[in-house]
């Protein structure tokens, strides 16, 4: 019988979901079995190629550890090591229980519902956000990765680049200053496409300087590695700025005058001086020798320097104030902080400034554009600190002062400006200017971008974001507030967590503290695996993986290639339903019906997913997930390009125009060089916190950058302790891939992937040899983690470095839970506001540890 069946042999286009880079795939299926996953050569995002994680998805699809049926706990006691006593239930029972809980909460106070997700479920989480919005809760936590990414970096992405993230222009950049990111080396946004493009840049001669405590995957590919003490990148950047502006006088005056607020006049109160009539910020016109509103058409030139009198008051251009402000931050000042020799900082500043080629132009698509082939990259490594906001500000200003922002060769927003799909004009956004001339993003993944700042509210949310509008996404304060809402005057407790695919117990900080915050919450998890976070769940639903579900993945524009073509892929199931696994979007639609929220929900779907007439969802019909995706596609790409078209063709793409990629010269928006509005905002936050009786250090809300030591820096050298840091590797995504046996096999070969990098001399002083088991004890949490020493010359002597997020202990992860499969860095990090940068709510990710040889060597 079987022999008579026609041989099935199909290639199915879809989209990867192992990280947030949304690479396009073609999946080879033979007689119902997936036999190969390849990159889709049509895609502009990854251009036919994949990273190891993308290729490895087969082994996650078919992992026998996967959750296949709905489960409920029988053990009422919850704990990180307490078996929940799972028993199988029907989908009907699961949904009845969930709907009853949700109904009760919605009646009482919908804010008691929390939504947790991560960036690898970027198709399901936004849909769940619409569910949460309709339900009436403002509480969400991108817990899997959000807090370990670029919280403050994303804030400056909005303020300076009108985008969530940035990448160097891979086609034209000639000098990449990389503060610890994995751009081009297997992590960060647009992983695969950027790996190709940055490799091309290396071959054509782009210089790459990596400033990083560890010679990790990013720094290995640099032409020069400059080891730096963790948490001091801001000091390095300040000294560079000082050298550029005060020693070398290298800056792009033309850019500063026309695209920043550098010429805006600042009074001695630190605020803009405004004209009496329109309240517009004033500038000084040196030709007419008088002040004028910044937008006055009669302006002949903008003064960047000098001191003037306006209405009898001292008035100085913001640029002058910045220059003055930077003077104390000399390379000699930075040397003992960073451990980088002053001469090196000076040399790098000079190289960077010279290579910016200020004044030069390039002709692209017949348009003469500024050519500034330098870019500064930083992310979690440099900004994941208590000093996140002010360090990030210093790092960002390097790009701004030389005018390398969103011009050929420079740093590009991902993706700040889109003129739309040519056939429909949809997917169109451009940065706009507000009344002060400052830029407002054209598109932002959350309901409102950080600028203009929202009203400072009291304890509306469970994560202080209501009070601190500068937090761009996920808040490092959530577990602190959740554990003790009364202290923060939050008038409710989180009662239920809708948990969409993140292992937050292992991916934020001290798992014991996280357990405390979450143990009394009724948790419903859409889960691929019974991972550590499901130990706190009450119901676990068998989630369809990215290879088993449908979605329009068009939204994650941060991973659309920065140059080349726009490209939007479909995600579709490549196999029939396995066991009882279901897509979260499907399930949410059923819950919408059970809760009677259809009308409001559809209205939000139409708005958030840009579903426009004649495809808008109407309340009198009930739509399946397939129908919603179909309508969205037709609304964006035209009647011909519905779901069926996408299922067959996989993707739609069209060329990017020069004015989309290099949009800055075409835009009339200005960005802050002086963050004038931070100060009054900080005063409002302080007033609110005082009113509520909450202690908050709001002193970092200031208009200009400086460097402040993290807690770990202040503990310097006590007990011969070291800094512990962690970093990303191309073989693993966060904590989610450690049960994949192919990735496990390649990780085992790399002694750094599962081990602990330690400087050879540092190890020798402690009697530690290569491969020894060592104990790393956290000074702030007292927790100890263990791993095998990987001795190297390529690490700062004061630092140990741990890759990714291994060290799993769930008994349901048969590959990942074995000894020696990496370490869970989070045990080292404390949960608490002392460890959070208040303006961005960034969690500090470097800690002081003592390192010793383990007593028992297994």
């Amino acid at each position: 019988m079987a022999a008579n069946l026609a041989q099935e042999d199909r290639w199915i286009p879809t989209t990867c979901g192992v990280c947030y880079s949304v690479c396009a795939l073609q999946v080879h299926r033979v007689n119902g079995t997936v036999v190969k996953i390849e990159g889709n050569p049509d895609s502009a995002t990854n251009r036919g190629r994949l990273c190891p994680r993308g290729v490895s998805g087969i082994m996650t699809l078919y992992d026998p550890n996967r959750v296949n049926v709905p489960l409920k706990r029988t053990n009422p006691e919850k704990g990180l090591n307490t078996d929940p006593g799972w028993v199988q239930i029907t989908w009907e029972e699961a949904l009845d229980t969930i709907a009853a809980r949700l109904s009760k909460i919605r009646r009482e106070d919908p804010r008691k519902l929390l939504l947790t997700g991560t960036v690898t479920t970027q198709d399901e989480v936004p849909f769940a956000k619409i569910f949460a919005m309709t339900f009436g809760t403002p509480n969400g936590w991108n817990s899997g990765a959000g807090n370990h990414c670029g919280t403050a970096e994303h804030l400056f992405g909005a303020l300076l680049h009108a985008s969530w993230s940035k990448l160097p222009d891979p086609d034209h950049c000639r000098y990449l200053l990389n503060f610890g990111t994995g751009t081009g080396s297997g992590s960060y946004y647009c992983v695969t496409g950027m790996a190709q493009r940055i490799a091309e840049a290396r071959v054509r001669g782009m210089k790459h300087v990596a400033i990083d405590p560890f010679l990790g995957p990013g720094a290995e590919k640099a032409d020069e590695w400059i080891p730096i003490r963790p948490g001091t990148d801001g000091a390095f950047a300040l000294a560079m700025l000082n050298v550029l502006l005060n020693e070398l006088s290298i800056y792009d005056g033309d850019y500063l005058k026309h695209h920043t607020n550098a010429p805006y006049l600042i009074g001695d109160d630190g605020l803009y001086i405004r004209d009496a009539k329109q309240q517009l910020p004033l500038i000084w016109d040196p030709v007419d020798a008088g002040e004028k509103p910044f937008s006055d058409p009669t302006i002949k030139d903008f003064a960047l320097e000098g001191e003037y009198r306006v209405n009898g008051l001292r008035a100085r251009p913001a640029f002058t104030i910045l220059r003055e402000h930077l003077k104390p931050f000399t390379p000699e000042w930075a040397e003992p902080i960073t451990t980088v020799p002053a001469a090196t900082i000076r040399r790098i500043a000079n190289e960077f400034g010279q290579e910016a080629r200020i004044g030069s132009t390039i002709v692209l698509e017949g348009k003469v554009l500024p050519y500034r082939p330098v870019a500064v990259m930083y992310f979690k490594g440099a900004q994941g600190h208590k000093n996140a906001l002010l360090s990030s500000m210093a790092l960002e200003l390097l790009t701004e002062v030389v005018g390398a922002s969103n011009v050929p060769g420079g740093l590009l927003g991902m993706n700040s400006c889109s003129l739309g799909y040519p056939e429909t004009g949809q997917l169109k956004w451009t940065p706009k200017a507000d009344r002060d001339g400052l830029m407002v993003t054209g598109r932002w993944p959350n309901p409102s971008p950080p600028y203009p700042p929202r009203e400072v509210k009291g304890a509306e949310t469970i994560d202080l974001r209501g009070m601190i509008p500068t937090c761009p996404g996920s808040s490092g304060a959530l577990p602190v507030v959740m554990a003790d809402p009364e202290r923060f005057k939050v008038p409710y407790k989180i009662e239920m967590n809708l948990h969409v695919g993140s292992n937050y117990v292992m991916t934020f900080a001290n798992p014991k503290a996280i357990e405390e915050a979450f143990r009394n919450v009724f948790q419903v998890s859409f889960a691929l695996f019974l991972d550590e976070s499901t130990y706190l769940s009450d119901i676990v639903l068998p989630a369809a993986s990215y290879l088993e579900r449908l979605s329009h993945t068009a939204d994650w524009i941060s991973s659309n290639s920065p140059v080349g073509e726009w490209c939007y892929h479909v995600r579709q199931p490549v196999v029939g339903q396995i066991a009882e696994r279901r897509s979260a979007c499907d399930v949410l639609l059923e819950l919408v019906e059970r809760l009677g929220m259809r009308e409001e929900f559809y209205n939000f779907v139409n708005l958030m997913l840009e579903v426009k007439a004649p495809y808008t969802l109407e309340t009198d019909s009930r739509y399946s997930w397939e129908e919603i995706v179909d309508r969205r596609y037709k609304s964006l790409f035209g009647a011909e390009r519905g779901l069926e078209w996408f299922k067959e063709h996989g993707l739609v793409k069209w060329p990017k125009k020069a004015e989309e990629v290099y949009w800055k010269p075409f835009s009339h928006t200005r960005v802050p060089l002086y963050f004038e509005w931070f100060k009054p905002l900080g005063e409002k936050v302080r007033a609110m916190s005082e009113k509520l009786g909450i202690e908050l250090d709001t002193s970092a809300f200031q208009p200009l950058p400086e460097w402040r030591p993290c807690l770990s820096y202040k503990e310097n050298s006590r007990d011969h302790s070291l800094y512990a840091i962690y970093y990303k590797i191309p073989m693993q995504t966060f904590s989610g891939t450690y049960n994949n046996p192919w990735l496990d096999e390649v990780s085992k070969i790399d002694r750094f992937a599962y081990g602990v990098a330690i400087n050879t001399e540092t190890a020798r002083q402690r009697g530690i040899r290569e491969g020894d088991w060592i104990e790393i004890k956290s000074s702030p949490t007292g927790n100890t983690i263990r791993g095998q020493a990987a001795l190297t010359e390529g690490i700062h002597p004061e630092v140990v470095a741990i890759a990714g997020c291994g060290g799993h202990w769930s008994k349901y992860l048969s590959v990942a839970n074995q000894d020696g499969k990496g370490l869970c860095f989070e045990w080292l990090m404390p949960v608490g506001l002392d460890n959070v940068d208040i303006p961005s709510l960034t969690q500090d990710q470097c800690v002081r540890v003592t390192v010793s040889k383990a007593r028992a060597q297994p």
Partner: protein
Amino acid sequence: MRYGMVIDLKRCIGCTGCSVVCKAENATPPGVLWLRVIKHESGKYPQVRRISIPLQCMHCAEPPCLEVCPTGATFQHPNGIVDIDADKCVGCRYCMMACPYDQRFFNAEMRYYFQEHPTPFEQVGYQRHQEGVVSKCNFCLPRLEKGLEPACVANCMTKARTFGDLDNPLSEISKLVRDRGGYQLYPELGTNPSIYYLPA
């Protein structure tokens, strides 16, 4: 005609995508890694370099493994690819001792990644492998026969790998070897590998 490969260490980021795509393409069982990436560090802090070096069968023009094979299981195709006829292999593993690059693997008995739970992929894919024999990279011969490049070449994120004819001086790989100073591993052994590396 002599098939060869150039691996550009300047492009390579050591991501191990080649290792994993080799596993997917050839459905090799646990412990059998026809392609591995190792790291090599040199220098003293702070002047340090670490490079990634992908390793696989070098398809030597003078293969030491072939000489020692008692059954003729190891043989060389006219295009230069060194191959193993599994039906002739008796698992003596002399070839493994002879290979100076440590690129041969013995599959004593068929194991599965999740022990007693073979995945559907493994149930289908492992039919291509025998127990008790030696296996290794064959430059994806079945793909070459279909006009495709080896899987590690086609998938490499950084396009670090170039495949072609070493005998043809006009081929891209011959040019890369000439222009970028391509070198072989252990040239002093006289094995004349068909894999060349370009300096990092």
